[in-house]
């Protein structure tokens, strides 16, 4: 989609004006002054959290060694050690850093509609051969991607994952919060994560079960895990 828009922008003077990318207004609960500012968590303590989604994810990949797992968080000793001890290869891609370095904070969601910048993110973070990975841990990062780019990321993930590979994603289920907590996720064991609060930042939209099913419509199966806290765990099968 973005390649066609980019080509149209380049063609320019064919008589028809190039299509203007639709400007998306963030549907997050933004104040009249604009999108809420991020709030950094300073000296935040880590806390353990049991995750059924994580448990299911590792149940699938545990018994087959030599798989390739994509981790969207910044490289951490805990995640690397856990996954490589299972005999797998881990690929680290700091997706949030890529988003923050591409889109300015004061125009974060609107600028994600820009086809060139959006393509830059896809090329930088998801430039892999087709059917390259056996699983992907995207944590809570998809909730900071605005709908036009979000669909592209979900599609690109689909392409780089092998059939029947799983994607584990977390979304805040808080309905009215203008800001959601972003965490650093470290794997403690097959069903436990160590969550360290990083900052509070606005999500691109409110994610409901329906909207998540729509995002992952191309996938075989979307499974939700109910939790007591405000995190919606989603395990998606390619």
């Amino acid at each position: 989609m973005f390649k066609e828009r980019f080509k149209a922008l380049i063609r320019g003077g064919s008589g028809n004006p190039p299509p203007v990318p639709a400007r998306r207004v963030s549907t997050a609960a933004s104040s009249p002054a604009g999108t809420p500012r991020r709030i950094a968590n300073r000296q935040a303590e880590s806390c353990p959290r049991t995750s059924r989604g994580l448990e299911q994810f590792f149940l699938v990949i545990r018994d087959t060694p030599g798989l390739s797992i994509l981790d969207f968080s910044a490289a951490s000793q805990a995640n690397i050690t856990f996954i490589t001890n299972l005999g797998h290869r881990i690929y680290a891609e700091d997706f949030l850093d890529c988003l923050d370095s591409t889109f300015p904070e004061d125009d974060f969601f609107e600028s994600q509609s820009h086809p060139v910048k959006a393509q830059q993110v896809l090329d930088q973070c998801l430039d892999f051969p087709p059917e390259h990975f056996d699983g992907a841990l995207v944590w809570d990062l998809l909730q900071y991607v605005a709908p036009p780019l979000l669909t592209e990321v979900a599609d690109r993930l689909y392409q780089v994952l092998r059939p029947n590979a799983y994607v584990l994603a977390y979304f805040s289920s808080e309905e009215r919060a203008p800001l959601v907590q972003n965490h650093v996720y470290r794997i403690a064991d097959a069903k436990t994560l160590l969550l360290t609060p990083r900052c509070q930042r606005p999500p691109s939209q409110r994610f409901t079960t329906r909207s998540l099913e729509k995002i992952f419509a191309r996938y075989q199966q979307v499974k939700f895990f109910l939790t007591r806290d405000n995190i919606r765990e989603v395990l998606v099968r390619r």
Partner: protein
Amino acid sequence: MSTTPTRAYEPEQNRGTAVIGKSVVVKGQIYAREDLLIDGEVEGGSIEAQEHRLTVGPNGKVNGNMKAREIVIIGTVHGNIEASDKIDIRKDARLMGDIKTARIVIEDGAYFKGSIDIQKPETKPAQARVPAPTAEPATPPAAAPGKL
């Protein structure tokens, strides 16, 4: 946030370490037969130091593949790295490339983009021990019925 204390960079005191200083730019391949500290720029080729340690210092910038027994990265590396023993990525390091090693240590704050393949060295199977012949305990003669 990690509570693990981070290690400050200390320059090698070992006399057996070759050094590429921070004002030096090397274009081409490097083969080292001793430990090597790179605090300058290296590009356009690979760096090999089999059975030795390669360190990319805080000012070091490497654009190429690296292969050694042990690799320590404090600066910036664009390229694949392979270490037969261990790779140590410090908190201010930036590494973009694939890693193959037996062990890896990565500090919080380090930037890494690439894959990690752990290849543990194959251990020789333990030789089956032949049990040493042991003398069988002498069976005591049957006790004669005692007279009461």
